[in-house]
C-alpha cells in the first residue's frame, strides 16, 4: 500500500499538465505542417521534400515583415500569400512537366528544390538565428510557471487554419473540384475541371499552410536555415503514422506524437525525446502499416 502511494507521489502531475499543454501547442503546429504535406500527397501524388523549406521560407518572410511593420498578423498573412504564390510557380515550372511520370521523379525534384532553398537561405540570411517577437506579452499562472498566452494563441490559430481549410474542402466551390480530382482525376477532367490548375492550387494551399506554420513557430523557437529539416522529417513520420493521404489521421498522429515527445522530455534529454517518434513509426510499420488512425487496415 505504501509503495503505491509512494509511486503516485513520484509522478510529477504538474509537469505532466504543463507538458500536455506544450505537447498540444507543438502538436497543432505539426498538424498544420503535416496537413499541407498530406494534402499535396493525397491529391497530386507528390511527396514534397521541399515542404520543410517552405516552412522555413515562411518563417523568414514572416520575420522580415514583422521586423519592418511591427505586426505579427501582417507577417502571418504576407508570408502565407507570398509563399503560396512561390509554391504555385514552383509547381508549374518543376512539377507539371513530371505529371504522368514515375512518382520517384517528383521525390528527387522536390529534394533538389529543398537543397537549393536551404542553401539560398543560408547565403541570403546568414547562419545566425532570427527571432519573431511574441505577438502577445501576457502570461497566466500555470502551477509554478508563468505560461505565455501567445502559445495558446498559436495553438488556436493553427487549429483555426486547419479547420478553415477543412471547411473549404467540404463546402467551398474549389473544394468540390479538389475532392473530385483526388477521387478520379480522369472523370474530373471529363467534367470540365481544369485538373492541372487544381494541382497548382492545391500545391499553393499546402505551401501557404507550411509558411503559416513557420511563422507561428517563429516565436517558439528561432528562425534558422536548418529549421525545415527537422520539421519535414517529423512531418513525414506523422503522415506515415496517420495514414498517407488521410487528413484526419495526420492531425491525430501529429498531436499524439507531440504529446508523447513532450512527456518523454520530462525524463529524457530533449534531443533524445525525438526517439519517441521513431519508435512510434517503427511500431506502426510493424503492426499497422496503413496508419495508426486509419479505420480498417487494408
Amino acid at each position, binding site marked *: 500500500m505504501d509503495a503505491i502511494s509512494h509511486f503516485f507521489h513520484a509522478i510529477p502531475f504538474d509537469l505532466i499538465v504543463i507538458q500536455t499543454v506544450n505537447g498540444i501547442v507543438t502538436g497543432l503546429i505539426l498538424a498544420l505542417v503535416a496537413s499541407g504535406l498530406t494534402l499535396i500527397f493525397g491529391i497530386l501524388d507528390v*511527396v514534397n521534400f521541399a515542404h520543410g523549406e517552405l516552412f522555413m521560407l515562411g518563417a523568414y518572410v514572416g520575420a522580415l515583415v514583422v521586423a519592418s511593420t511591427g505586426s505579427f498578423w501582417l507577417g502571418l498573412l504576407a508570408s502565407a500569400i507570398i509563399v503560396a504564390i512561390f509554391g504555385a510557380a514552383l509547381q508549374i515550372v*518543376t512539377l507539371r*512537366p*513530371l505529371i504522368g*511520370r514515375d*512518382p*520517384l*521523379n517528383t*521525390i*528527387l*525534384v522536390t*529534394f*533538389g*528544390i529543398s*537543397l*537549393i532553398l*536551404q*542553401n*539560398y537561405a*543560408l*547565403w541570403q540570411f546568414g547562419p545566425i538565428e532570427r527571432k519573431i517577437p511574441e505577438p502577445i506579452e501576457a502570461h497566466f499562472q500555470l502551477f509554478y510557471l508563468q505560461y505565455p498566452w501567445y502559445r495558446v494563441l498559436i495553438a488556436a490559430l493553427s487549429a483555426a487554419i486547419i479547420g478553415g481549410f477543412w471547411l473549404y474542402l467540404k463546402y467551398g466551390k474549389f473544394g468540390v473540384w479538389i475532392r473530385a480530382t483526388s477521387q478520379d482525376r480522369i472523370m474530373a477532367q471529363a467534367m470540365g475541371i481544369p485538373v492541372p490548375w487544381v494541382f497548382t492550387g492545391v500545391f499553393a494551399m499546402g505551401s501557404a499552410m507550411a509558411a503559416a506554420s513557420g511563422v507561428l513557430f517563429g516565436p517558439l523557437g528561432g528562425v534558422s536555415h536548418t529549421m525545415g529539416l527537422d520539421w519535414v*522529417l517529423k512531418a*513525414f*513520420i506523422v503522415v*506515415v503514422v496517420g495514414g*498517407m493521404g488521410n487528413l484526419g489521421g495526420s492531425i491525430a498522429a501529429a498531436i499524439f506524437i507531440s504529446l508523447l515527445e513532450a512527456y518523454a522530455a520530462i525524463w529524457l*534529454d530533449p*534531443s*533524445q525525446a*525525438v*526517439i519517441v517518434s*521513431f519508435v512510434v*513509426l517503427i511500431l506502426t*510499420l510493424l503492426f499497422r*502499416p496503413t496508419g495508426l488512425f486509419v479505420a480498417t487496415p487494408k
Partner: protein
Amino acid sequence: MTTAPLDKSVPLSKPLLSHTAVFWIGFCVVMAILIAAPLALPEFWRRFLTEILIWGLLAMSSDLLIGYTGMVSFGHSAFFGLGMYGAAGALLIHSPPNLWLALLFGLAGAAGAALFVAYFSTRLRDIYFAITTLIFSQIFYVIIFTWTPVTGGENGLIFTRPHLSIPFLYDARFTSTTMHWFVLAVVTASYLFLRRLTQSPFGMVLQSIRENEARTRAIGFAVKRYKIVSVLLSGLFAGLAGVLYAIQNQFAAPDFVYFITSGDTVIFNVMGGVGTLVGPIVGAGFFQLMRELLSRLFGDQFPYLIPLGAVFIVMIIFLPQGLLGFARRWLNR
C-alpha cells in the same frame, strides 16, 4: 533464288571487335589512366581523385538498389556512416590499428544496419520505402549524435590511419599514392563483382522485380528474399565506402550519417545514369568537379548547391537517364 528467313542471330556484317572485347579494352584504358594518375597529379588532386572513387563506390552500391532492383533508398548514409564508425571503432580499440580489422568491423556495422532496413524493405513499396529509409537513416544519426561516450557525439571520432599491411608480405604507411591504388583496387574489385552479379541469373531476377514486381512474384520467385539480399549487398558496399573514407580521412563524423548524404548519393546516381554501375561513379566525379570549379571561380562561400541543384532538377526533367544513360544497354550486356 531461295529466300531464307532473316536469322536474327547472324549479323549482316561482322563488326571488327566483339562487344566483350570493346568493353575490356575500354576498361583497361580507364584503369591505366586511373593507375597512372597519382603519379602525375599534385597532392590535392590525388586526394580529390581518391575521394571521387570512394563516393563513386557509395553511389554504385546505391545503384544496385535503385537501378537494378527498382527500390529507391535514402538510407545509404546509414550504411556509409556505420561502415565509417565501425572502422573507427576497430582503429581506436585495437592497437596497433589494423587495416583488416577496420574493414571487418566496418562491414559488420553496415551489415547490421542493412539487415534492419532490409526487414522493413520487404513490407513496403515505392515511396513508403523511400521515406522510411530516410527516417531510418535519421534514427541512426540521432543515436550516433547523442550517444557521445561511444560515438564521440557531435564531434565524431579521430584516429590514426593503419598501415597498409598484407600479412607476411608488406607493411608500410600509406602514401597518398598507395592509398589511391588501394582504394582503386577495392572499387574496381567491387565494380567487377557487382557487374558479374547483375549479369547473373540473380541479377536478372532483380531487374525483373524492377520492371514488374507482381509478375515476378506470380512467376514464382521469392521476391522478398531477393529484395533482402539486394539491400544487404547494397549496404555492404556502401559500408565498404565508409571504411575507405575513414581510412583516407582519419575521422568519423555524424554529418555523414545525416540523410543529406543519402540525398547526395541519389543525386550522383541520377546525374550519372542509374542502372549502369559506372554511371554513378561518373556522376560523383561530375558533381565534385563542378563543386570544386564553382568554389574556385566564385570563392569558398558561394552556395554551390544552388546551381548544382538547378542542374540536377533540369536533368531529371529533360535528361532523366543521366550522363551515361545512353550507354545503359551497352554497359549491361
